C-alpha cells in the first residue's frame, strides 16, 4: 500500500515539475523569437528606404514585401509575442503553485499579489535611504 502511494506521489510531482521545465523552455524560445523580431524591426527601420521592397524570412520562406508592410508585420508579431510571454508567465506561476501544493510546502507569501510598482518603488526608496 505504502509503495503504491509513494509511486503515485512521485508520478504526480515529477509530472508537475516536468511541466514547469517545459514552460520555462517555451519562455526562452519565445524570448528568442522576440529578440530576433526586434532586431529585424530595427534593421528595417535603420537601413531601408521606404518605398523600396525588402527581403524578409517568414519561417522557412523568403518573402519580398514593401518595407512598410514588413514593419507592420513585425510590430504585430512583437505584440503577439509579448502577450504570449505574459500568458506563459501566469501559467508558470500557477504550475509552481500546484507543485508546491503537491509537495506540501507552505504557500509562498505574496505570490498572488498584483504588482504596484510605482508606489512600492517610492516606499522602498524612502525606507532604504
Amino acid at each position, binding site marked *: 500500500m505504502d509503495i503504491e502511494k509513494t509511486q503515485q506521489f512521485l508520478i504526480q510531482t515529477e509530472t508537475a515539475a516536468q511541466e514547469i521545465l517545459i514552460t520555462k523552455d517555451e519562455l526562452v524560445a519565445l524570448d*528568442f523569437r522576440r529578440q530576433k523580431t526586434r532586431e529585424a524591426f530595427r534593421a528595417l527601420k535603420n537601413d531601408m528606404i521606404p518605398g523600396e521592397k525588402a527581403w524578409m524570412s517568414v519561417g522557412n520562406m523568403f518573402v519580398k514585401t514593401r518595407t512598410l508592410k514588413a514593419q507592420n508585420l513585425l510590430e504585430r508579431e512583437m505584440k503577439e509575442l509579448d502577450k504570449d510571454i505574459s500568458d506563459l*508567465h501566469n501559467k508558470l506561476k500557477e504550475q509552481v503553485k500546484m507543485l508546491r501544493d503537491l509537495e506540501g510546502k507552505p504557500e509562498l*507569501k505574496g505570490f498572488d499579489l*498584483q504588482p*504596484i510598482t510605482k508606489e*512600492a518603488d517610492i516606499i522602498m526608496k524612502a525606507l532604504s535611504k
Partner: protein
Amino acid sequence: MAAIPSVKVAEVREFSRIERIGTHSHIRGLGLDDALEPREVSQGMVGQLTARRASGVVLEMIREGKIAGRAVLIAGQPGTGKTAIAMGMAQALGDNTPFTSMAGSEIYSLEMSKTEALTQAFRKSIGVRIKEETEIIEGEVVEVQIDRPATGTGAKVGKLTLKTTDMETVYDLGNKMIESLIKEKAQAGDVITIDKATGKISKLGRSFTRARDYDATGPQTRFVQCPEGELQKRKEVTHTVTLHEIDVINSRTQGFLALFSGDTGEIKSEVRDQINSKVAEWREEGKAEIVPGVLFIDEVHMLDMECFSFLNRALEDDMAPVLIMATNRGITKIRGTKYRSPHGIPIDLLDRMVIIATQPYEEKEMKQILKIRRVVFLSDLRETDPNYDFSLNRCEEEDAEMQEDALLVLTRLSMETSLRYAIQLITVANLIARKRKAMEIAVEDIKKAYSLFLDETRSTQYLKDIQDEFMFNEEDEQQSEVAMETA
C-alpha cells in the same frame, strides 16, 4: 595556477556577529514538536510545559491570522520565564511577521502623548505586503560598439551585443544609454542588468569564462556565471513594510529621515485615515496583504487607566495586531487610580484576554537552565577573549568547564535564592576560576562568588540589621513613600 575565488570578502573582524549576551539570548524558539507538544528541553526553553503548550496554540492562531485583535496575558511570579516565552514566540514566528517588543514604561515620554505612543506601537506591529514587478534585461556583454559622429557634434550611436547561455542578440543604443554604459564602464565580459523601465544599468560582475583575460584583477572584481535562459526576464520582489513606516513617510516631506532619528513626533490622524483607506483600497484590488503581527508589552502593570481604556478601544479596530502582555504583579493598584485589581489591569480588559499562567521552576529544570546558560556564556566568551584556550572541548560535555558538584551546588543555590542570581554567579565564578588558573569552575569558586555578591534575601536581612547607619532610613522613608503614591 591558483584558482581565482568567486567572491572576494573584505577582511573585517566579525564584530557585528557577536551578540551581547542578554538574559534571553539562549532562546531560539518555543521548543515544540509538530503536534504542538512541548519537549522537555528544546531550543533553549526548559520545563514550563503548560505555558509553552498554550503559547504554541496561540502561535498557530497567529500564523493563521485568526487571532488578530485579541489579547494574551502571561502572568506568573518573577523569574518564571514570562519574557522568555515571549522571546520564544518571536523567534518562532520568524522574520515575516512584525514583532514589536516594548516595556510598559516606554509609553511615558515627553515628546508624544501616551495614546500616540500606543498607536505608533500598534501600527509598528501591522505589516503590509506589497509586490513590485520589473522587466530586466540580464546578460553578458559580448561587444560594445560606440560610433562618434565625424562632425564632432551630434548624437553618438552604438550597438550592444548581449548574450546568455541560450541566446544572443544586438541592441541599438540611444544617447542616454551610451552615457550610462560609459559611466558604468561596461566592457566585454561583464555581466550587466538593464532595467527596462528606468534604463538603469548595474554590473553584476565579470563572467567566469573571461577570468583568464587578465593576469591580475582589482580587489572589487567579482566573478559570476553567465546568465541562463531568456535575456529579458520578469522580476518580482515582495516587500513587507509596517503601517508605521508608511505613516512616517507620508507625514512629512523628509519623512524617511525621521524613521531613523526616532523623532517622528505626533502623526496627524488625517494622515493615518488616508493611509488606512489607501491600504484598504489596495486590499480590495488584490495589490496588498495585511500581515497582522504581535505587539508584546512587558511590565504591563505600569500602564495607567487612560492607556487601558485606549487599549480596550484599539483592540476592536479591524486592523489590530495580537497583543501579548506580561506582568508579575498580583493584586495591586491600577496605576492612575486608587482601585485594586488582579495584575493591576482593569477587569474589563482582563475579560478580553486569554491568560497563560507560569509556574516556578523545579530543581531539575533550574539545573538544565543553568547548563544552557553556561553554554551560552562560554561560547560568547570564546569569541571575545583572544587569550581563551581553544583546545578545551565544547561545553556540551559535563566535565568540560564546570565540575558536576559545582553545578549541583549552584542548582541548590538557585532553589534557595533565585534563578537570576544563580545565572549571574556563573559569570563571576568563571572569572574567579580563571584567576586561580583553573580550567573548570569548582565549588570553591562558587562559594567565593556567593560570599562576594549578596542576593536579594541576604541583602534585605543585612539591611534590617544595620539600617540605622544608612542614610535616609526608616523615619524618612515613610515620608517619601507618601510622596510617591500621588505621582
